[in-house]
């Protein structure tokens, strides 16, 4: 039983990479990354603690001073925190990819006959699972501090689905960051940038109309704002179509562009 070295007598023709094999590769890599997530509970914990702190901060410390027209502030801010919860999770995508590059794991995988995109797909899918978990926790916490869904169950589920889609699209932004900077520390720092720019300069915490005039055009049209506006409308009721298609277009565009960038960076990746 120890015959590790039975030689294939002939060189087989180039084995075909079927869709079934590619899906199996994605499954294998996803499972590996999920095991890694489960086995670093401290990271998982931090990706829940961070949005928890922001939520409590804006609900209880700062929220009292913020008035928004036509809406209770808790119902205004909590959907924004939901989005933050999936956005912050993406940081670990960048970090994990940079770590794999540095450790030489990427070299090993690239030397295998696996479907190459499976490495990135498995990474982002595992991180999606973690984001969904963090989101579920934050939704529970939101309900606990007074947030309420006011629309039909279908519309509310659509809102949650939109948050998840936004988070998944941004996972590819973080994948590109991790592959581009290649160094875990830098990856972590670089990941804060989209987070700060998109989350704070958006309608997540305060209405865009309270921001200075030069900032408003950006803040009004950037992906986080339109997504949060659409999600709020889905949770609260009211006109949703305009924000929804913009949000969907942003998510699809970001996904497509950063998928292409990440695949290209991975193809050229040298540890």
């Amino acid at each position, binding site marked *: *039983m*120890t*015959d*590790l*070295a*039975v*030689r*294939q007598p002939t*060189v*087989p*023709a*180039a*084995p075909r*990479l079927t869709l079934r*094999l590619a899906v*199996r*590769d994605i499954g*294998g*890599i996803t*499972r*590996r990354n999920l*095991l*890694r997530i489960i*086995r*670093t509970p401290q990271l998982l914990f931090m990706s829940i603690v961070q949005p928890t702190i922001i939520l409590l901060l804006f609900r209880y410390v700062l929220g009292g001073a913020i008035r928004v027209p036509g809406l209770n502030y808790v119902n205004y801010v909590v959907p924004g925190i939901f989005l933050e919860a999936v956005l912050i999770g993406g940081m670990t995508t960048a970090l994990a990819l940079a*770590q794999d590059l*540095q*450790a*030489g*794991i990427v*070299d*090993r*995988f*690239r*030397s*295998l*006959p*696996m479907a190459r995109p499976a490495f990135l797909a498995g990474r982002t899918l595992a991180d999606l699972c973690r984001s969904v978990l963090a989101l579920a926790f934050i939704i529970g916490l939101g309900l606990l501090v007074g947030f309420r869904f006011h629309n039909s169950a279908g519309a509310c589920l659509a809102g949650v689905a939109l948050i998840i889609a936004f988070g998944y699209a941004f996972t590819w932004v973080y994948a590109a960051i991790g592959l581009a900077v*290649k160094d875990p520390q830098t990856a972590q720092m670089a990941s804060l940038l989209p987070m700060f720019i998109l989350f704070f300069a958006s309608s997540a915490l305060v209405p865009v109309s309270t921001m200075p005039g030069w900032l408003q055009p950006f803040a009004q049209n950037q992906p986080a704002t339109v997504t949060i506006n659409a999600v709020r409308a889905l949770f609260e009721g009211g006109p949703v179509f305009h924000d929804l298609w913009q949000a969907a277009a942003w998510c699809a565009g970001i996904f497509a562009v950063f998928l292409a960038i990440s695949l290209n960076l991975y193809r050229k990746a*040298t*540890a």
Partner: protein
Amino acid sequence: MNAAIEVEDLTKRFGGTLALSDVSFSVRPGEVLALLGPNGAGKTTLIRVLTTLLAADSGRARVAGLDVRKNARAIRSLIGLAGQYATVDELLTGRENLELIGLLYHLDKTVYRDRAQDALERMSLTGAGDDRVKTYSGGMRRRLDLAASLIGRPPVLFLDEPTTGLDPRTRNDLWQFITDLVAEGTTVLLTTQYMEEAEHLAQAIVVLDAGRVAAQGTADELKDQLGGNVLEVQVTKRADLDKAASLIAGLGSAPPRLEASLNRISLPVKGGPRVLIAAGRALDDAGVELEDLGIRRPSLDDVFLAITGHPAASVDDAGQAPPASKAAR
């Protein structure tokens, strides 16, 4: 034509640096070829080209009869790669690591499960198979890394500095294992900074220096290139070193090499005992006090020095990790 690995005029540039320059050699099936050279000689670059991780700028390379450019994916199912820094996942168990690699070689589940179990047994890792790799010693990781590269039962195996940084006992175990694999028909290309390793494992040696093939052949052929023997003189007093060197320089076939820290002179010579006696007489007549005087066959270190003009590996850089690829944390 039937070579397991064929390399023809490979050239690779990184910016202004020539990492590989017209490198050519071939490896017969079932043979071990050692790529020998110091850090920065181009060994790892060459391995990366042959394992389809990096495209060369020009030249041709075939592995198992397939072109690395045109048949990259087919080659990947026929090779195994074990790196200098054991690239196994620390948070997974040994068995999970092996099974994942087996899955990615597109083996059936029953097959990769059996093979993972076999590999753990063969590498004496059975007891630790279900522990996370984080708890493994350096030697255990290296064995697991090697096991992972063998899960696909590849006919061609690439080992990038397989024993760098290992203690002598673990290194000997790995040597034995590689010898067994070759006996079963695997072709192995390994890189090393250690002459001893090349001499022990390889039928053919390619000496790389600054991206060029400085010499190639069997260990004996390389030694014959140097011609003859090496006269070694150790003086008692440091002050006598230069004087002794100049006294015996005329007997040598190449300039003497001085190791001041050891008070030692090595001199390539053509002759045998006659040269030894002549050197002894000259040194004694001049009143040089001797600690030791002898003649020996050249080592590959002498050969490397003679071919390239500098030693193969200094103590300083042997086993030092380049910053970009530390061991998995």
